[in-house]
């Protein structure tokens, strides 16, 4: 059932949502927009298409404590200090980020289940938001995402003076219940408006310059051909080996677990890792990928070949275009797909 709310009541909606759980949404911090906790004086920026970091943080945070140890004499005590039980809503998640959670689910919810991630997935409600004005860096359509009607527990559209609220899952409907005083039912006329808007959005989405990227040839059977391609050298030569592309990516999923000596105990934590870094998968014998070419190749082979080979052909890129916009030297997955897409004859 489609519900609606007048846009000038949006502050009340946030207030209400935030009264029963933590509400995260795109917030402006001196010009940069990232998901952050809502407060009455936060500068909410739902108009921002892409936050710098994705919505991934709320399910798989950049750093999180796992457990702590304390030693007294001969005793070692274990202190549970995980903090993944807060109920929360992430509001204004775009279609690309909403889909990225499916990709993370396949990694973290398969056996052995990652209990931290699972708890956050259970406690979190996703309110996704339709895109009416995509950017040229967007290519979600290449991965079969319909940005005009993204997945999520609730999907909202902002059209004219109204916010349309479409509760989709059980969780989403329950969230709608909790704010039902503010929502009214959409009329037949509203549904027409929505339909028109969706059509318009889809038309623009179909014109995106990266929309013609072709994934033909990125399949398991081409693994060795792609792996051995001479093009990697050329593609990777300017890469400075920073972690920007991996840290802004909604689907990058690698992490590291380390012990931190706090001086009076040990804090075990996990943090995002980046295959672009020299200490990625560092072992006693050294790093298995010694050159930046090998590290660079890993990132794209993982997204376009290894992951789909293990997950029924699903690619682990959602075409959000963040790496396209943020790489310091403008190298990115779109250029890689372009270069390697057509089968290189051997």
């Amino acid at each position: 059932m489609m519900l609606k709310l007048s846009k000038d009541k949006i502050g009340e909606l946030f207030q209400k949502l935030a009264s029963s759980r933590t509400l995260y949404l795109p917030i402006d911090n001196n010009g940069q927009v990232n998901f952050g906790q809502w407060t009455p004086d936060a500068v909410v920026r739902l108009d921002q298409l892409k936050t710098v970091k994705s919505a991934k943080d709320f399910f798989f945070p950049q750093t999180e404590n796992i457990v702590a140890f304390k030693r007294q004499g001969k005793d070692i005590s274990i202190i549970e200090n995980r903090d993944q039980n807060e109920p929360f809503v992430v509001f204004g998640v775009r279609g690309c980020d909403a889909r990225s959670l499916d990709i993370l689910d396949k990694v973290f919810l398969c056996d052995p289940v990652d209990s931290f991630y699972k708890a956050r997935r259970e406690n979190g409600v996703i309110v996704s938001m339709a895109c009416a004005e995509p950017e040229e860096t967007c290519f979600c359509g290449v991965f079969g995402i319909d940005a005009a009607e993204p997945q999520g527990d609730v999907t909202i559209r902002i059209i004219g003076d109204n916010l349309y609220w479409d509760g989709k899952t059980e969780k989403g409907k329950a969230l709608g219940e909790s704010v039902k005083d503010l929502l009214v039912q959409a009329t037949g006329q509203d549904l027409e408006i929505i339909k028109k808007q969706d059509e318009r959005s889809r038309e623009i989405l179909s014109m995106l310059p990266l929309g013609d990227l072709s994934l033909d040839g990125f399949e398991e059977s081409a693994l060795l051909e792609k792996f051995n391609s001479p093009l990697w050298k050329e593609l990777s030569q300017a890469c400075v080996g920073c972690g920007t592309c991996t840290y802004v990516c909604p689907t990058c999923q690698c992490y590291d677990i380390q012990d931190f000596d706090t001086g009076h105990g040990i804090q075990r934590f996990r943090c995002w890792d980046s295959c672009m870094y020299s200490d990625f998968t560092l072992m006693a014998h050294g790093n298995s990928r010694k050159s930046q070419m090998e590290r660079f190749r890993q990132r794209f082979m993982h997204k376009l070949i290894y992951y789909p080979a293990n997950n029924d052909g699903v690619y682990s890129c959602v075409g959000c275009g963040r790496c396209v916009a943020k790489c310091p030297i403008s190298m990115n997955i779109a250029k890689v797909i372009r270069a390697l897409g057509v089968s290189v004859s051997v």
Partner: protein
Amino acid sequence: MRRIRDMMRSRAGELLREGTVNRVLGWKNGEFYYDPNPAVFETEESLDGLVYNGFSAAMLSKYLIDATKKEGRILVFLKPCDTYSFNHLLREHKVNRENTYVIGVGCDGMLDIEKLRTLGVKGIKSLDENGDDLVAHTLYGDKTLARRDILLEKCLSCKGSEHKVYDELAVVDDPWQWDTLDRFAKVGELEGMTPDERFAFWRGELSRCIRCNACRNACPVCSCLKCVFDNPRSGVQAKSNADSFEENMFHIIRAFHVAGRCTDCGECSRVCPQNIPLHLLNRKFIKDINAFYGEYQAGADVEGKSPLTEYKTGDVEPSVVYERGGA
């Protein structure tokens, strides 16, 4: 800049053909007008992909650390400001001058795609640079922007059009010109704040840091073979912030490490995905060095002493901190 690009293509072609150079380091066209990436060209035919436009900001000097270790000679294109970083790398014996052929390229100021986005430009299909303006053809219509409004931060206080080192030049005699701003103005503003205000300013800015290390990796003078933060035995993680203290310390330590060496090339601020004004930290150091030891511009010369590697009896004592009212 199109004229310069044509000169670059033809000279690079000639130099490759006659065997003066074996490779060419330049910028290669991308998917959009604004995303050329640094690339090495090895054949004359491949030079068709060589571009030079308002978005060729990525500095090529640092790539020469590795590139000049290889056999043969490499041609590199350096904008005026890039020559400072190249010189500084020469001073520290990080690059091999013999293996390098420098063509100094004229510059009309580099543009900032983020500024275009902030001004509401999106869905870019193509861009046209003409004189004072840039026209963006987008999915949502055309938009004209004044070049002045979308210049990169570092170009707002350009060091000038002179190349500090080159073998030959590719310049035009009527470049686009603009008024530059005092690069220390904002530093002065920060100095005028109370310590608490200043602390709050930096905590706010640095709170956005995601520790991607792009600032460090793009920096021409962050050229240690292995950064201290990448040492697994250092007890700190290069890839995550344990707490806000560590996140702030990383930047302060890095600023100390590049003090007296930072050429103020602006790459750190340009590459930061969170738009953190890192140049302000470095400019504070530069301003103080100038005040304490006399004007010094890293990379202006290859020879000669630099303030922090030289000792003079008249050098300031640490107590200057108190004299200036700090604590």
